[in-house]
């Protein structure tokens, strides 16, 4: 089945009902996307499909046909958000981090704290208490403007 993965045309043979999450991790070897709850609640498995966030643990692979899929790997290793998460210590165990960064990557360029809260409402973190995550996103937006 054909789709675009992190900007590259890709063809993967897998069961159409396999979870997109498992195809990304197993068939495509992209293990940056994590599984937390496996029921759509925690957002650890967040990826972009056609530019919007989805929980890849509840998306059948067949629904990614012809779609444009972007994972945490697709943001590259030097994305401003990634640096900001490190600088502000926005990660502890790190399971939620890839999903947080992907969700934050589609916020507007200069989000308010409230917009960050709403935009990340589908991403749970059981370690940081969120403050450092919000700080990281705010500082990344500031750095982007500077």
């Amino acid at each position: 089945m054909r789709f675009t993965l992190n900007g590259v045309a890709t063809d993967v043979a897998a069961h159409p009902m396999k979870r997109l999450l498992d195809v990304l991790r197993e068939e495509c070897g992209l293990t940056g996307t994590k599984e937390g709850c496996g029921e759509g609640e925690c957002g650890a498995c967040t990826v972009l499909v056609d530019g919007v966030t989805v929980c890849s643990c509840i998306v059948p692979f067949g629904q990614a046909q012809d779609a444009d899929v972007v994972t945490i790997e697709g943001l590259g290793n030097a994305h401003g958000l990634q640096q900001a998460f490190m600088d502000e210590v926005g990660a502890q165990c790190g399971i939620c981090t890839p999903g947080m960064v992907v969700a934050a990557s589609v916020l507007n360029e200069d989000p308010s704290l409230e917009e960050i809260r709403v935009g990340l409402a589908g991403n749970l973190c059981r370690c940081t208490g969120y403050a450092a995550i919000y700080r990281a996103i705010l500082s990344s937006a500031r750095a982007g403007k500077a």
Partner: protein
Amino acid sequence: MKTALSTLEMRRATSVAEALEILRDEPRMPIAGATDVYVGLNFGTLPELRYLDIWALDELRTITVNEDVLVLGALATYTMMVASALVQERLPMMIEAARQVGGPQIQNRGTIGGNIANGSPAGDSLPVLAACDAVVVLQSAGAERRVKFTEFYTGYRKTVMRRDELVVAVEVPRVSGRQWFRKVGTRAAQAISKVVVAGVRGEGARIAVGSIAPTVIRLTATERALATGSLDEAMVALRGEVNPIDDIRSTADYRKRVTENLVRRFWTETA
């Protein structure tokens, strides 16, 4: 995923006509945004083995106004509704409801058709549709029928929809009066605490409540009392017609109290 993949099979339809032919020839469970279906599959609690992917049916991904009726295509997502000027203008209580569904990931994928067909009494769009006297449009191969939303459910997660039918749209006639929506309780705790109320205050009152009965219900006696009497009389009527789901006793009492408080707030806030 707890369900064994090797036992499952899915076909992908590329047009509504093709989907309806497939359903005519063999029963299959439709999958729209998959936000309910895949939670079931991940838990291993869905007995279905054969599925029909309808996500690609762009014909159903529409929000339009036709002869003064707002038509929400079955694949309209919560995100689409929140962004729609037509929904904002005609059905602002749906926007309130949609904003409170899950997080952005769920709003991007979850559809109005899925919420209706899934039929959970806790579905947040359902009280909105019941309060505005919406009509569900069902299609099967070569046929179409319209069912009043308030007659769509026949029991707990039971509907009048046949297995060869799809929900293709829901129609909302123009709503006159003030619209009001409240959801109480978090999803995590919804089994014991959630109550959803949608109300319209125009000539009279139209009030629908979710999560307190096997299906979404209209409070018809309360509506009548509000139209002709006082709020206190309406509360007596409400206590008479609301019999929350009978699980743990205190829970039923709690739900009744919350419903009363919400209806009071609806009436005072829309005065």
